């Protein structure tokens, strides 16, 4: 068990003219094969959307009823993106600033009451710096519902043996 070193030599250095011609032909034939039957891995992003699986670390959503205001999420945030704010008398609630957030998910994992969760949305465009601060009610809205109710076609990605990645339509 364990690894061992194996000495190797680069096979077939200094190819002969015949071998070179053969390799040229093989490369051209492979190119022609892909020209006829392309193996596409990209998808048309703004028209078609890929939504990641459950468990993806996307935007963070707060469940206000579960939160006990313990501040652990703000303490463990490595980018100081999460801060606690006064939300009423003796009531602390977190707010996240996506200008700083690195989506490490520490806050979600340390929350003892499971009040924070990840949404699957990850591609949000912000128009201004202020709009990147998710505070109060804005932090409790699930951005996934917005995406899933939109007009774009939603796909999910599967790893496939033949084609690498395939996109299965969800709807």
């Amino acid at each position, binding site marked *: 068990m364990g690894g061992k070193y194996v000495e190797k030599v680069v096979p077939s250095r200094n190819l002969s003219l015949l071998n070179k011609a053969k390799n040229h032909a093989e490369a051209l034939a492979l190119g022609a094969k892909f*020209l006829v039957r*392309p193996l596409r*891995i990209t998808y*048309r992003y703004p028209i078609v959307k890929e939504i990641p699986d459950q468990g993806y670390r996307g935007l963070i959503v707060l469940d206000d009823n579960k939160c006990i205001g313990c501040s652990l999420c703000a303490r463990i945030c490595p980018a100081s993106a999460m801060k606690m704010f006064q939300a009423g008398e003796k009531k602390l609630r977190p707010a996240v600033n996506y200008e700083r957030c690195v989506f490490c998910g520490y806050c979600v994992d340390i929350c003892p009451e499971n009040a924070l969760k990840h949404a699957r949305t990850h591609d949000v465009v912000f128009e201004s710096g202020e709009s990147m601060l998710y505070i109060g009610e804005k932090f409790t809205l699930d951005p996934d519902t917005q995406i899933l109710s939109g007009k774009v076609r939603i796909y999910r990605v599967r790893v496939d043996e033949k084609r690498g990645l395939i996109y299965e339509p969800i709807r």
Partner: protein
Amino acid sequence: MLDSFILFIKNIILWPPVFYLLIAPGLVTILISLLLLIWAERKIAGRIQMRYGPLEISPKIGGAIQLVADLTRYMLQEIIIPRTVDTLPYLIAPIAGFIISLLPVAAIPISPIYFPSPMTNSIIVALALTTLPPILNILAAWASNNKFSLIGGARESFLIAAYELIVILSAIGAMVIYGTSDFTEAVSLQKNLWGIILNPISAIAFYVAVLMATGRFPFEIAEAEAEIVMGAYTEYSGLLYGLSMGISYTRMFVYNVIFSLLFLGGWQPFFTIGGHIFISYVLIPATVVILKALIVSLTMVFTRAIYGRLRIDQALGGAWKFWFLVAIVGLIWGSALTYLQQVI
């Protein structure tokens, strides 16, 4: 009055020198083929490279007018002229380069009876005219006053020395068989057997030399992006850059028109439709020649998706030590064929 005016315009357009330089195979045809070729190049590369290629503009026709959008952008972009360049040659080089790369069409007939200048040595004139554009590339490199441009110009001048001889020798290899230096006669002699079958060696040498001349892969050495940014055109922007990009494609198309006339039977198979002189003697043969040239050009842009870029010493070594000899062998083969024909 109006009728005579229309007739006058029609006569001007159909006057061979104007028709050749402006319509076919001149400016209009070349612009349309440029559009097609660059689109096809990107589409071919896209299919091989696991992606779609241009699709955002006009998705229904596969993004075919992407180049029009690109050109529009180039036209609207500010042309930045760096302070340190030699302004006049800097401006002249891409413009003149584009026009001069079109010039050989003046000597290339695309029809058996309808041509701009009746020449008995049109092959030689056309080949001579194709050798001009690289000089303007070197001028652009020198005028840019940039080290990367300078290296690009130097590389281009090394390459000219290598490919020019191969192009001309392999063209002579074909000319020897036809016994003429006139395109019209050469094509009419290919009625039964195309030149590529008579002299495949010269045809291959010509093809490779054209790849080298027009900076197709694997000979994209003078504009090697990863090494010298953009070669001679590093300092260009806007429309001037767009023009400089068009030069190599224009040259490739013109070379391939010559290739299809010399080796692919030109406008053969030639047929006429009774009563329609213009269609029979201009439109059909022109379409046949241009289609052949386009197909050859497509095989040339296909190489972009297969090969990397050679080093300058490897390209020059390959050209002088291998393809030069191949061109000579092609010449000997052609002469031998002619000799045998005379003996038998």
